[in-house]
Every structure is written in C-alpha cells, then in structure tokens.
C-alpha cells in the first residue's frame, strides 16, 4: 500500500476508535502559494485567486460591528489604506465570513451600503457565508490581513498593525504592517515582518 493510501486509512481508523481528532487542514504559509478561493462578491461576480494572477492582492477579513474594525473605519485608517493600496496597483478584497444568523452577517445590499456609508474603497466585498475561504486562509479575527504578490505567493499574514487595542488614538502611534509589506514589495525586498499576530474579534464562522 502506498503512503497516500495508508494515511487516510490510519486516520479513519483512529477516528473509528474515537480516540483522537486529526486536524487535516493545509495551513497557509508565507512564501508558499496562497490558498485558492472562489467566492461571490456583493454583485454576484465570482472571484477566484487563479483569475487574479499578475496583480498584487490584499485580503481584509471584516465585520462592521466589531470594535476593532470600527477603530480602523471610524478613524478613516482602513479607507486610507485601501486607497493607497489600489493606487499602488493592488486589488483589495474585503471578506465577510460571518455565517448566516451570526453576528456580522450581511446581505449584499447591506454590504454595499456599509461600503458607501463608510467611504470604503475595496475592489470588491466577498460574502463568504459558508466560511470556506476564511477557513482556507485560517482567518481568525476581524480585521485579519493577507497580502499576496503578483505570482500568487502569500507574502504577509497577520494583524493590520502592532497595536492590539480598540482605542482609535492608537492608530496614529501604530506601525501598519500592511503598509510596511507594500513598501517592502515596492522596493523589491522580502517582507520584513511576514507573520504577525492578528488581533480583533473572532470571525463568526
């Protein structure tokens, strides 16, 4: 028997014995190809990583009622970052992974209204109600940021900055990791802080 055949058999057997749970997920890793996704945005258009080759991509997990998200939208920090990124040629996808019935779940119309009322500037807002994309990326918090370069390689994952608080005053003092990553990429350097702790509210899968 080959290894590829025996492994699932063993795992299944262990489950049958009800003695363990094997986490069988391939976790996203910086420097490796980013996990693929295929999720519809608020207009019904499906976005997938495979179609976006050649362009830098920023993913932002969000939940409009989360105080940590409100810190960045209320202060205008997130909107400014979105504009900056798109001016630099990045695509910006905001992802909402709240499950139906869970806090933060929105209809396409509500999502568009939020974008408009907050003056946000994402390329699109993806509605990941089944959590498939969030789980593929291991998104844990809102906000949780991912930067993918033009070759589809994940180059940054983690928090938006180094101030894990809800205090809007911290935005000024913070070192913004997404901005740092964009600067490093623009200069042709490897991202200096490629993995940081994401902070915020939990994603409501």
């Amino acid at each position, binding site marked *: 028997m080959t290894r590829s055949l025996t492994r699932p058999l063993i795992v299944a057997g262990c489950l049958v014995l009800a003695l363990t749970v094997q986490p069988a997920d391939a976790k996203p890793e910086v420097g490796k190809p980013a996990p693929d996704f295929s999720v519809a945005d608020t207009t019904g258009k499906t976005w997938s990583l495979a179609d976006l080759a050649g362009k830098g991509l920023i993913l932002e997990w969000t939940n409009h009622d989360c*105080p940590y998200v409100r810190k960045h939208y209320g202060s205008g920090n997130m909107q400014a970052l979105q504009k900056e990124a798109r001016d630099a040629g990045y695509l910006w996808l905001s992802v909402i992974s709240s499950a139906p019935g869970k806090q933060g779940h929105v209809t396409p119309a509500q999502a568009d209204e939020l974008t408009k009322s907050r003056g946000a500037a994402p390329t699109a807002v993806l509605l990941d109600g089944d959590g498939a994309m969030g789980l593929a990326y291991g998104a844990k918090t809102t906000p949780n940021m991912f930067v993918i370069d033009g070759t589809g390689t994940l180059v940054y994952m983690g928090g938006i900055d180094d101030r894990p608080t809800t205090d809007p005053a911290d935005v000024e003092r913070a070192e913004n990791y997404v901005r740092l990553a964009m600067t490093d990429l623009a200069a042709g350097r490897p991202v200096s802080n490629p993995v940081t702790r994401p902070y915020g509210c939990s994603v409501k899968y």
Partner: protein
Amino acid sequence: MRHGLVLPLLLLPPLLVWGNPVSTEQVTARLVAERLVVAPGEGAELLLVLDIRPGWHTYWRNPGDSGEPPRIVWELPAGVAAGTLQFPAPELIRVGPLANFGYSNRALHPVSLEIPANWPVGEPIRVRALAHWLVCEEHCIPESAVLDLSLPVADRPGPPDPEVARLFQEAREGLPLRAISDAVLRATPEGARLDVALPASVRRPVVVHFFPSTWGLIEHAAEQPWRLAPDADGGRVQIELTPDAEFESADPGGLLVLRSGDGVSRSYDLNPRRGVEVPPGPETMSSLGLPLALGFAFLGGLILNLMPCVFPVLAIKVLSLAGQGALDLRRRAVHGLSYTAGVLVFFALLGGLLLGLRAGGAALGWGFQLQYPPFVALMAYLFLVLGLALAGALILGARLMGLAGGSQGASQGSSRRPNQGLGAAFAAGALAALVAAPCTAPFMGAALGYAVTLAWPLALAILLTLGLGLAAPFLLLSLWPALAARLPRPGPWMEVLKQLLAFPLFGTAAWLLWVLSVQSGPTGVALVLSGMLLLTFGLWVRERTALAAAPWPWLGTAASVAALAGALWLALLTECPGIETPPNTPGAEWRTEPRPQPDQEPYSAERLAAARAEGRPVLVNMTAAWCITCLVNERVALSSRRVAEQLAAGDVLYLKGDWTNRDPAITDYLAGFGRTGVPIYVLYPRAGEPRVLPQILTPAIVEAAIASLGDPDPGLSRGEIP
C-alpha cells in the same frame, strides 16, 4: 448608577464610569484590598474582580485566537508602585473552529502594591485604576472603568478583610503553584510534542491542557492528545500539539493545567526548553580513532550474533546451514554472500534513514524501531507466523518460509529446488539485521555514537562494518567446507529441531507483545491480538482451500490477503495518539514484587544537576523495556540487597530513565556520552568527572564502583587542603 451620564457616555467610546464597584452593561468591576488597613514598607494585595454576565467572557493574558486581556493604567501617589496584573488559569472557550482562553462568570486578577517605608502613617493612599477589558459573547464590547480605592495607612497592617477573603483564596488557587522547567518542546513529523515531568502531587492526571503564553506557537483550537509516558514512575506526560505560524521563534512557555482524579485543577508555569538535535560529539568521542571504531563495529557485529534478541534468527540460520550441508561449495558461497548482502543492504538503508532523521533534526536513537509501536506489532505478527510455520501448523509458500529459514527449503527432500534459496538467504540476512539493530551491545553503542557524529560516508562505513560483523560467522561457515562438514547431516532430527525452534519464536512474539503493552497499553495489545487472530484465521482459510477445486484456492488467497491487510491496519492503529498507557495501569506492577529495590527517582536533567550541585553522588541508569541487557543488569546487579544498602549508606541518588518510548531528554543525555542506545550506567562522584560503568554489570562491579566513592572527602583526607 449615574443614569444621567449614560446617554452622553454611550456616544463617547470608550465608555468610562467612575466609582468602585462600577457596573457596565456586561460586567461589574471592583478593585478590593485584602486588608482594610495597610502599613508603610509593606506590600498591599489588591484584586481586580470582574463579575461577568452569563454567556460572556473576558480574556487570559494570551487571549487565544481573538480578544484582548484586561489591563490597568494606574494613577498612584508618588512612591507607590503597582506590580503586574496576574492571571489565574483560564478556561478553553471554543468559538466555532477557533478557541479563546478566558474566564466566564468571574475573572479574578490579583495585583500587588508597594508602599514606600517613609509613607506617613495616617495619610490614606488613594489608588485610581483605569481598567480596560474586552468582554465577548458572540460579539465583543470593549469596556472601561475608573476604579477608586482609598487605603488607610497605620503603622502595622490590619487583619484580612473577611468580606473578600474568599475571593482572594479563590484567586490564589487559580494561580500557578510553581514553575516546571523539566519540559521539552520539539517538532515531530506529525507536529510537535511537549514532554513534561509531572509534579509529584499529580502523577495520574485525568485532564491535561497546555495554554501557550504567546500567539503563534501552537494552534490554539487544536486538540491536544496526551499520554503518560511509560516511565518507571509514570512521571511524565507527553502532549501532542499542532504548530502554528511562529512555532520556531515564539516563546515556548505557557501554563500547564492538570486535573487529577479528585476533580481538583492545578496549574503550573511551564518553561520548556526546545529539543535539540543530537549535538556534535564532544572531544572524547572524536578521540576514538576511525580504525578503532571500525574494529569495535566489527566486533560488535560479531557479538550481536549471540545477543538474546538475535537468538531466534541465529537459530533459523543454524537450521538453514544444516540444510545447506547437501549443497556444493559454490552454492554455499553464493548463499553466504547473499545473506551478507542482505545484512549489508539493510544496514545501509537503516544508516541512510538514521542519517536522514539526524538531518531532519529528530534526535532519535538506534533502537528507535522498537520504540515505534506499529513496528513492534509487525514484528510480533512476523514471529507468530514464522513460529506457526516452524511448528508445522502452517505450510507456507516459499516466500514466508524462505524468509524464515533462509535456504531451508533446500532441505525438504523431494521438493528441493536448487535456485530457490538465494532470495531467501538475502531476506534472512536482512531479517537478522532488522532484529539485531535494537540490541545495543557494549561495542555497538560506542561505534554508533561515533557514527552519528561523523560525516555520512564515514558513518555509513561504521554501520556497514557492523553489518559485516553480524554476517561474518554465517559467511565463514558457508565458505569453509571443513566447518560446514562438521555440522550434522540432515535427517529426521531436523524436523524435531525445527519444531523446537518454533518456541523461541513464540517467545519473541510474547516478549514483543509485552513491549507493546508498555508502549500502547491494553488497547494496543488488544488491537494486535485481534490482528493476530485475523491473520492466523486468514492463513488457516488459505491452508484449507489451497488444494481444493477452483475457485476455492483463489478465494482462500483473497481471504488471507484481506486478513493480512486488516492485521496490518490494526498494527498501524497502535500509534493512534489517543492510545495511551491508562492512568490506572501503573508501571508499578513491576515494582511491587518483593525484590529489594534501591530507592530511585525518575531521571531528569534538573534533578541530576541539583544533586550534583549539592555534592551528592548520583548513579544514573538509562533503561528500556525492550532492552534485554538492561533488564538482566537490573535483576542481576542493581537489585541486590547489598547494592541497595550501599547506595543508601553512601547517600547516592539513584536516577533511572526509561527510554522505552522516545524520550528526548534521555536521547540528549545518551548523546552527551556518545551513545545512541541503552543501557548506560553512569556514576557521578561527589565532585569530579563521572564514570561510565560497563554495559554488562555484575554485583561485584557495581559494589566496587560504589565503594570507590568511599571516603566522603578524599581530597581532604589526602591532606590537599586548598
């Protein structure tokens, strides 16, 4: 309170309310002092109490996948200083696929205040704490409160305030009892393993959980299967962890929570060190020259022929040699060389594997095959089936029989096929090597310890020489007609001998099952016994149907293949992480026998270092259940009443390490002496260099060694006053 303020405050996050206690929407916060009156120059113990609305929670110092721990910004009079906020052991709060570490219902955070000695008596200390916390149910709310507390100051502290005594008691019970530093965290092919020496008070925990101090070390939400290591004293727990993004660089520290059978949870600060690769050998090893090492390797290989765990295979070889008596020299030579090639190929493969593992950072020892339960199970199957075949219960095809008996098929009179034995001789050679490898004979330890520290071509040369030594006796007997001619002629005695030889094979299978029982507990033994039943039944079906009309032979073969697959599968399940040595089957069974046993403690590097620092002599014994030499030594030499008395009289600390399963701490220790296998016996005098005792012990050797520790202070008695 302060209803008039509520509306404007809601518009002004963060919400700030003054007082003590302060009630927010989800939490009532208080800052209380243990004593109503404090004194200058003394500490004052305070407690931040957060009474949380049911269903909501606040966070531990590492909040887990989301959230934020409470914090306090102090406004204190000059000279008064506050310590850090303390965090009792948290709960694991699962949120879908994520996990948080925090508190439900009530969070208690002790904090100490330092009052300067020159604080004027009679002037109260006004403390203002700006407390921030995040409280979450499904969604999260950041809340804040300004907590004011005035502490009257007298020349001596007042009695504890009975109103809050229970709160303080509860808070302290939740704090870590002490730190455990005898813990190792290392990466494994499956993820990561934390190996912790259990405190003496919680030897049989029923719940074990590790809370990491920092983000990124491990997946917070991953299951943490654990088992008690089958240590002599059941003194270690192994926890399987799932590494996260910063596993390599994050602080490995955290909190270990243990719940014992009485339902009481205790927590311990854990400061594991990271497991390291086998370090490059110290000077003493390099000083062993290559020719000498090769000589030892060859000698070790020769001696392996006589080791107990090679004996069954040796017996098979004798049997097949007898069978070859009828063959001509050329054929015998080819058989001998095939056997040698089998041994060498196996040693080369094993050496490659060992070096690969070394390169991969897994500091594993030579005996690691028998530390892997599925391997033990497979060997037990093999010996059972070979034993059945030898006993005549099964007439296996040439393949298995060949594996067992080398060219034994050649002896079976009319059914003799001259060319058949070559592959079988090769297989018998490989089998002999496979079984021999874990028996770290006295010479093998030194040679292997030397080998793993070398560049790979030299290391392979050592291992191949070892293999050559193992193969040499058989090769010589094959090549040297004079010797071969002295062997008895084939005859009816061979059948008797063959049947007799089944019993060492059954014995080996029984021994392997015992090893497995130590590794995988009753569940593992049950799995393998079921596998054995399945396997023998499948073989019996095949046996019954082999000579019947079509399609019966085909069906019989299919049944036996299915049975084999099932048995293999069951064997692999012995490695399921959940299978553990159950808490209620202590290894103590082996210590309750009425034999004199010296007082012993489980080995840990810390215990050894501590005893050495005290200037106490130490005897270290590294052993394993599958190491026959070790068991014999313990029975014969270390368990004598005289040795026990001597150890007690000389105040010698006896530390015993069990390497039955992979234990990185012991692997490291062995590597320090250039060994990759057990046994090793090291005697540390009160001061000075440790002395390694021989690997085969007699009571006389041990008694002489301990007696040589003799005079408690030999330096002074010789007049060498510093």
